[in-house]
């Protein structure tokens, strides 16, 4: 037994508080989290046989998700909803506002470094899901222009580092790489030449690297 009183108290607290908490943590099978991530993306736009590249653009995303442990402690399944803005040089010049909503489901593999205290956990997940995209056409253009609703797929890998300084509550740091393929109908008509119209399918392929941080709660 420790002889120093402070050490004795520490051991007592650990025994009475942290160990049961850690034990409960082992039993917690669900986690809710929310985070914000920012980063860069490259995009390629293909229209018919024309292709345009946009490099070094910005991406911002708000995410919320749920992770369910299936094989404790190392394996689970993550469901994620992501709302993001994908601006590129062209859209910022034109004044287009591009947003999208992703759903994502992924098996997640975890490794927990230690059982007590912060219990930092490294997770790696890779999955896919559907994407819903909206583009608000630029105002003030001298042509009549509109976009339909865009549909697509997103896939990617995501790694998170979580820590639980507040018991069941904690923080997470994340890095994720994702690939989006989005199809969206673009319609344009000349203002001064009646009959000159076009309706084309735009295909955006963009690759995004995001870094972020968020908050989690286990139950």
């Amino acid at each position: 037994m420790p002889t120093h009183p402070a050490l004795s108290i520490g051991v007592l607290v650990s025994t009475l508080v942290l160990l049961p908490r850690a034990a409960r943590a082992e039993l917690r099978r669900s986690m809710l989290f929310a985070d914000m991530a920012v980063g860069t993306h490259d995009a390629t736009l293909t229209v018919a046989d024309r292709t345009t590249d946009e490099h070094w653009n910005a991406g911002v995303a708000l995410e919320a998700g749920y992770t369910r442990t299936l094989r404790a402690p190392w394996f689970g399944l993550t469901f994620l909803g992501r709302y993001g803005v994908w601006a590129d040089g062209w859209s910022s010049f034109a004044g287009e506002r591009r947003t999208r909503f992703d759903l994502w489901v992924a098996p997640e593999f975890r490794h927990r470094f230690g059982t007590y205290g912060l219990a930092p956990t490294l997770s790696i997940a890779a999955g896919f899901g559907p994407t819903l995209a909206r583009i608000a056409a630029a105002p003030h253009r001298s042509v009549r222009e509109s976009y339909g609703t865009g549909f697509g797929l997103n896939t990617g890998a995501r790694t998170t580092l979580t820590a639980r300084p507040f018991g069941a509550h904690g923080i997470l740091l994340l890095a994720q790489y994702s690939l989006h393929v989005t199809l969206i109908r673009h319609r344009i008509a000349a203002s001064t030449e009646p009959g000159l119209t076009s309706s084309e399918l735009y295909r955006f392929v963009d690759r995004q690297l995001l870094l972020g941080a968020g908050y989690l709660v286990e139950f």
Partner: protein
Amino acid sequence: LGPADTRIESKPPRLSAGWWCALAVLVVNDHVLKGSGLLPGVVTGKLSDVAGLLVAPVLVAVALRLRTPRSKLVAVVLVVLAFGAIKLSLQAARFVEAGFAALGIPWRLWVDPTDLVALAVLPLTGWLLRAREDSRSRGALQRLGIVLGALSCLATSYQRFHGSRVLMNSTHDTLELAVYRSSVPIDCDAAETDAESSLPASAFVLERCATFGPYDMLSLDPPDVLERDDERECEAVVVAGAGLPPVAIFWSDPVIRSFERGRDGGEDYQLSVFRIGERLHVEPVPTVTLWQLHGELEPDDCGGAP
């Protein structure tokens, strides 16, 4: 620094009269002098950077209420690092532009290493950061200064083009167009009345091939317009390219103006070329006469021309 100086330096910086002067120079330069022809573009460009390096670090220090010399130095270093990055790296400039665009703030940045000469003004910036508390600088005035300074810094870097009429590339593609100009003096009065009859295809000869990227602008004036002494009363050009049937454009009042890159529409002197399916289409503005040119033009060697 002596004890008295330390006491002064430990107070949050104020927006001094010198700072307000720098802000005035920034605003006047960006919104009056640029494009006015009163000063060369290279002068207004550098003046903008000099004034910006006086305004921005102090603005950061005041907005964040930085008190110690070290924290003020950090503010200066951060501004200088950001300034250096966007002046040296296209990727950094694009990244900052796109980041602001994601927030709904359009910002244009020039990548030009020669702009780093403006760093010579930093000793003056340091002097502005040492400004004593000024009883006349009330809180409301400080807040007004912060807002005005932030707006001025954001508005300072629009890329500008000059011409009496410009054609903006509103497509996603880099375009290569052939520009033809009248080889004989134009009878402006006759063209004003009936441009299509006065300016047949045979009147135009190839002047240049022009390549310009998405949201770049192409001046429709002669390339040497700024050096020419002759008084022009009107101008006429033909532009043609792959997907763009020859389009003739005639206009009077060819006064050189300044245009901001990326400002689409709402300009009486700025035409735009759009892609509509496989075709390119030039959308006219009220200050020009535009028509599809019939007749044979001189063949050209421009890569994108038909």
